[in-house]
């Protein structure tokens, strides 16, 4: 055995597991606490700062005015409720679209096809999100594919609308819903389905009473992505529609009124944390 300095050091460390733990943990912990949590604390403080109404300069004195302004101005409330509705609608659409393909992957396809499908769903997930949103802008535009298809039927579709944004969001987060549902369905043991059939359960009854309840946590796990990602997004709404959402408002006012923007950022933070807590209750984290 080597008996150099390295050997002595490692023997020294071997006897001190606590020290080894801190050597491993120190750097990542410091980074997360200082860079990330530190920044969040700065943002938290910024929400309580005052803005000089005359010059627009941020004054570092404590005030609750920003929160008051957001609570009392109808526009902010409308924007918040519109965004939450959008997030809910996107989630529903994604569940509907994701379930058949996830079910097919998990329970019908051969192992080979299944692997191909997993990759087929996973690759677009990693393709640039901005590019995908931009592609939808092209598709939904006046001279785009959607209107080109509808034109012979004498129909038109205003793509740059809430409906167009709904379609875009549904597209953007769809793989995030497919993969957890697929994982959840794959985990259901065949024996349960056989038992249901033996007990006289028809396909539909088995689906409703066995598959759906068992797959539900996975659906909630997927919804964490579809719901939370919609809530804070500002790029897709900015590209598709002139309608304002929480993300676009924060993005637009951050230049003139950082404290108000910071205070408004608490809306998605609070909603996301509440959603995560409910999801944990519904055992969704195990399916993540």
């Amino acid at each position, binding site marked *: *055995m080597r008996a150099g300095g*390295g050997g002595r*050091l*490692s023997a020294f460390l071997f006897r001190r597991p606590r020290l080894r733990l801190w050597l*491993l*943990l120190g*750097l*990542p912990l410091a980074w*997360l606490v200082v860079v*990330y*949590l*530190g*920044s*969040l604390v*700065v*943002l938290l403080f*910024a929400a309580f700062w005052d803005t000089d109404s005359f010059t627009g300069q941020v004054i570092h004195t404590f005030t609750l005015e920003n929160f008051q302004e957001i609570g009392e101005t109808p526009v902010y409330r409308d924007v918040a409720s519109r965004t939450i509705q959008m997030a809910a609608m996107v989630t529903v659409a994604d569940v509907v*679209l994701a379930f058949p*393909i996830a079910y097919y*992957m998990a*329970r*019908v396809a051969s192992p080979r096809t299944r692997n191909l*499908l997993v*990759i087929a769903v996973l*690759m*677009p*997930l*990693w*393709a*640039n*999100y901005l*590019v*995908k949103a*931009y*592609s*939808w802008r092209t*598709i939904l*535009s006046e001279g785009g594919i959607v209107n*080109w298809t509808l034109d012979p039927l004498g129909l038109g579709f205003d793509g740059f609308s809430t409906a167009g944004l709904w379609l875009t969001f549904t*597209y953007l987060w*769809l*793989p995030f819903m497919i993969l957890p549902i697929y*994982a959840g369905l*794959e985990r259901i043991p065949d024996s349960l389905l056989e038992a249901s059939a033996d007990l006289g359960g028809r*396909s539909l009854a*088995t689906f409703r009473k066995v598959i759906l309840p068992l797959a539900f946590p996975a659906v909630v796990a997927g919804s964490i*992505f579809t719901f939370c990602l919609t*809530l*804070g*997004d*500002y*790029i897709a709404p900015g590209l598709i529609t002139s309608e304002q959402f929480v*993300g676009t408002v924060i993005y637009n006012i951050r230049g003139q009124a*950082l404290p108000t923007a*910071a205070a408004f*950022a608490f809306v*998605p*933070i609070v909603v996301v944390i509440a959603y*995560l807590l409910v999801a944990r209750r519904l055992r969704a984290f195990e399916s*993540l």
Partner: protein
Amino acid sequence: MVESRLTRVLLQLGTGLTLAFIYLPLLVIGLYAFNRNVTQKWPIEQYSLKWFSVAWENEAVRDALKLSVLAALGATAIALVLGTLASLAVARYSFFGREVITFAVILPIALPGIVTGLALQATIVDILGPLGFSFGLSTIIVGHATFCVVVVYNNVIARQRRLLGSLEEASADLGADTWQTFRYVTFPQLRTALLAGGLLSFALSFDEVVVTIFTSGSEETLPIWIFATLSRPAQLPIVNVVALFVIVASVIPVYFAQRLAGGAGLRRRPAPLLQARP
């Protein structure tokens, strides 16, 4: 349960439609990159390769590409170190606050990007500004590394759950010290997971725009360049080419990460989102 013939056909139909939906926009961007006209009208009347050379000769695009690659390399390097260290600690030790670490690693991608972005911007302006720091490559890297850590962490920790602790014990019994055990036993087993995590982290950083807008100041990464140029209709043909390039550039590392992290035949559990493969 054996699905009836009708159910199977319907499921196949649904699967086909969803796949078509997933790939349509990517296909559209791919086609528009070859559009000769400046106007983005469907159907495309004339195809040409003209805009590829125009894009390649565009100074701003080249600079942005360079910055994107540098930022992705920097963020990946930091994420590899931090993610591996954190995962080694969480996988091998039980300690007070272990759950908190898991949560803290995931938080940067769980909270909306705009919150992370705004928080980092406020910190750079208010705290780092007075200290003489300003927006640039370093702030972009810091922002990216913060949410790239989770990708490396997830890949490495998933691999460690499959490793046999007995191998390391055997190594120690045979007289290897801690460092030798890591170098000759642990590391070779983690190598492909690290590579996969690194590739995914590179792809994540290379594509990032939501947080980068807040941390880049006047510097432009490739996605930021796209975002800024979308409002100039005359430049859209170049954007289309760059968009196609960006898609291909991020999908290739992901494909390799998939294959690396797999390990033939080992696969039973389906892939969680942030891992190349279980």
